[in-house]
C-alpha cells in the first residue's frame, strides 16, 4: 500500500512511519504547518518540522510539508476564540483532528493517490459489526481515542493507527533502537498554538472582549467577589475563584449577558446529567443508539456510566454525579459492553 503518514515531529508518528515502512508499505511522510503565529509549545513548530524531516531521512522515506495555516486559523483557532467569547470551553485538538487531519488531509491523500492515511495517535481501528470502529490504544495512560471520537466509518476505513497496539514505553524503545532523534522528545501537553509563556488566558485576552463579572453563590445569589473577564472562566474552574470560607468554590455556570459567574461547593457543583447539542451527535456506526453507555468528557478523563437519551431531551443521565463539565467540551461515548470501543461523540451544551 501507499501510505501517507502525518508526522508531527513527535516520537509516536515517527514510529508510526517506521512500523509501516517495515511492514513493507510505500511510506511518504507529511508534516502539517498549521500555525503561522508565534508559539513555542506543542506540535508543528519549525523545530518539529525539522525533527519530522530528519526522522523521514533516517527512515529513507520522502517527506513533504503541507501548509494548512489559513484553514487551521479558520476552522480551529477562530472557532476556539469565538466559543470562548460565548462563555464556552471548546477542545481545539478535537476540531483539528476532525476538520484538518481527518478531513482536508484525508481528501488530499486520496487525491494524491494514497491508499491510506496514518497518524501516530494512541488508538486502534477495529472491526465491529462488519464496520470499522475506533478503539482505545493499548496504553491506557496515553490513549487518544477521545480526541478522535468524531471520526466516521469512511475515514476510519482509510486510517492506519499503528502505534495504538503498543505502549508509549515500547514506542520510545523502538524509536531509540532505530536511532530516531525524537525517541526521548517530551509528549506535547498543551494547545499547540498557545505559547507556554503566554498561556490560554494571555492568548484569549488579546483576542476577545472582556466582560467584568460578579461571582455569586449558585443557590443564595449572594455576591462573593468580582472577576475581570467572564470569558476567561471555565465551568468547573476553582483557581482564582473567591470563596467566603476555607472551602474551595467551583464555577457551575457563566452568564456573559448578565455578567454573572455562579459558584458553589465541590459537592453541590457535581452534576448527574450532561445535556448534549443534538446537531453535534456523531457516530462511526452511522446512527448512535440510546441506552447504557460509558461516557468520557476530557482527553484523559475517567469514563463513567450513564444512560444516553437521544429522543427529546438529548442528554446523558449519569449513574453517579461528576464534577461539572464545561459547555463546549465533548462527550465521547464508549460501548457499554465493549468499553474500549467508541460509539460516538457529542458536544456538551449549557444546562
Amino acid at each position: 500500500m501507499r501510505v501517507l503518514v502525518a508526522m508531527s515531529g513527535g516520537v509516536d508518528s515517527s514510529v508510526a512511519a517506521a512500523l509501516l515502512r517495515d511492514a513493507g508499505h510505500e511510506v511518504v511522510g507529511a508534516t502539517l504547518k498549521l500555525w503561522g503565529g508565534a508559539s513555542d509549545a506543542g506540535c508543528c513548530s519549525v523545530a518539529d518540522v525539522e525533527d519530522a524531516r530528519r526522522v523521514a531521512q533516517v527512515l529513507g522515506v520522502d517527506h513533504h510539508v503541507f501548509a494548512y495555516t489559513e484553514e487551521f486559523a479558520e476552522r480551529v483557532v477562530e472557532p476556539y476564540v469565538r466559543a470562548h467569547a460565548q462563555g464556552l470551553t471548546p477542545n481545539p485538538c478535537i476540531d483539528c483532528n476532525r476538520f484538518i487531519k481527518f478531513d482536508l488531509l484525508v481528501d488530499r491523500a486520496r487525491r494524491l493517490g494514497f491508499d491510506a492515511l496514518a497518524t501516530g495517535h494512541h488508538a486502534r481501528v477495529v472491526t465491529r459489526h462488519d464496520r470499522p470502529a475506533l478503539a482505545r490504544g493499548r496504553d491506557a495512560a496515553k490513549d487518544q481515542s477521545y480526541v478522535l471520537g468524531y471520526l466516521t466509518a469512511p475515514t476510519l476505513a482509510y486510517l492506519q493507527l499503528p502505534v495504538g497496539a503498543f505502549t508509549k514505553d515500547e514506542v520510545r524503545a523502538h524509536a531509540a533502537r532505530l536511532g530516531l532523534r525524537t525517541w526521548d522528545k517530551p509528549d506535547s501537553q498543551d494547545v499547540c498554538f498557545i505559547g507556554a509563556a503566554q498561556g490560554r488566558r494571555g492568548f484569549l485576552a488579546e483576542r476577545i472582549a472582556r466582560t467584568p463579572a460578579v461571582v455569586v453563590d449558585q443557590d443564595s445569589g449572594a455576591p462573593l467577589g468580582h472577576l475581570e473577564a467572564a470569558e476567561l472562566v471555565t465551568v468547573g474552574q476553582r483557581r482564582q475563584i473567591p470563596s467566603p470560607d476555607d472551602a474551595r468554590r467551583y464555577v457551575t455556570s457563566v452568564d456573559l449577558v448578565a455578567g454573572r459567574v455562579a459558584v458553589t461547593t465541590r459537592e453541590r457543583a457535581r452534576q448527574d446529567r450532561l445535556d448534549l447539542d443534538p446537531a453535534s451527535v456523531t457516530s462511526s456506526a452511522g446512527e448512535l443508539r440510546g441506552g447504557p453507555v460509558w461516557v468520557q468528557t476530557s482527553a484523559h478523563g475517567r469514563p463513567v456510566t450513564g444512560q444516553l437519551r437521544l429522543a427529546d431531551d438529548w442528554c446523558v443521565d449519569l449513574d453517579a454525579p461528576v464534577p461539572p463539565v464545561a459547555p463546549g467540551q465533548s462527550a465521547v461515548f464508549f460501548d457499554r459492553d465493549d468499553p474500549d470501543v467508541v460509539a460516538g461523540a457529542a458536544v456538551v451544551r449549557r444546562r
Partner: protein
Amino acid sequence: MTRAYLDYAASAPRREDVLAAMAPWMRGVVGNPSGMHDASRRARQALEEARDEVAELVGAPPGGVIFTGGGTESCHLAVAGVTHAALRSDGSAHLVTSAIEHHAVLDAAAQLARDPRVRVGSLPVGTDGAVDPTALGGVLEPTTALVSVMTANNETGVIQPVEAIAARVRRDSRAAVHTDAVAAAPWLDLRRATAGADLVSLCAHKLGGPVNAGALVVRGTVAIDPVNPGGGQERGRRGGTVDVAAAVGLAAALRAHDREREELTARVGRLRDRLLAQVVDLPTCEVTAPRSPRLAGTAHVTFAGVAAEEVLFLLDRAGVCASAGASCSSGAAEASHVLSAMGLDPRRSRGAVRLTLGYATSEEEVDWAAGALRAAVATLHAR
C-alpha cells in the same frame, strides 16, 4: 529520480566551467588575501581580477564591488548600510521598497523599522506585475534615504523599469536606488537592466556558481555603514576574510552568462514558450502577466481551485523539480506576497506553479514536465 530540473530560479545546476575556475582556490594552500606573503599575493590577485570582472559586467568602478556571502547578505547590506548611515547623519531614515521585493529586502526593512526613527513605504505594482514609476509620487519624500526595486521578480519573472524609476527618484529626492538583480542576472545585461541604480545586489548560485557567494556593487558615492565591520576588509564595508573561490566563482558565472546571453535567452525563451504552449489550455490555467516583459527562463502559471502543494507533489513523483514560487524555511509553500500585491484572487494564487528553465534545460525535460503537469492537473481536477 529527477527527470526534469525546472527550478533554476531556486538554484541553478553548478556549471563545470565555473567549478574549474574555482578549483585552484579550493584546495591546498590558499593565502588569506590580506596577508603579507606570496600565497596571499596570489590569492589577492585572483580576488582583484574577479573584482575587475564583476565591475565590468555590471558597469561600475572596481572599487564599488563588495564581495559578500550571497544575495540575501548583499540586499541586507544595501538596505541596512544605507539606513544606518542616514540615521547617523540625519537622525531618521525613510525607506521605500516595492511590494514585490524578495524577503531579503522586505525582512531587512521590517527589522530596521522596529526602530521608531525608521519608516518604510511600499511601492505598489499593477496587475501586470510591474512597478509603475509614477507610483513613486505617492511614497517618495525629498529626504528618502533608499528606494529598493528589484531588476526582475523572482516569482513571476516580470522585468521592472529600473532606469525609469531611478530617473524619477533622482528628480524628486536624494535617495539612493538599490536594485536586487539576483533573479535577473542570468538573463539580462546588467549594464543596461540596472542602469541608474546606485546599488546592485548579485549572487552566484542562480548563475550556476556556488551558494554563499555574492556581491553588492556600488556605483558612485553612496554612504553605507558596514553591517559587519570586523577586520575592515572590502574597504571597511564588509569585514571578514574574503572567500577567493566564491569571488572567482561569481565572476566566472557572470562572465559565462554574459558571453552566452544572446544565444541562451533565445534558446531558453523558445523552450519556455514550448512549455507554456503545452499547458495553457489546461482547465483554469492562466499564465501570469503574459503581456509584461519577462525573464526568458520563467514560466509562471496559476490554476484556480487547485492547491500548488498537490501539483508539486505529483510533479515530484513524476521526477519534475518545480516550485510554488515562494517557500518558507520550513519547506511549506507560502502564500505569495507578490501575487497578492498584483491583486490576484487568493483562490488562484494558492494554485501558483513556477517552472524556471536555464542554460542546461533540454527539450526532453520541457516535454516531460509539460506531460507531468497535464497529468497532475487532470488528476486533481478529477477528484
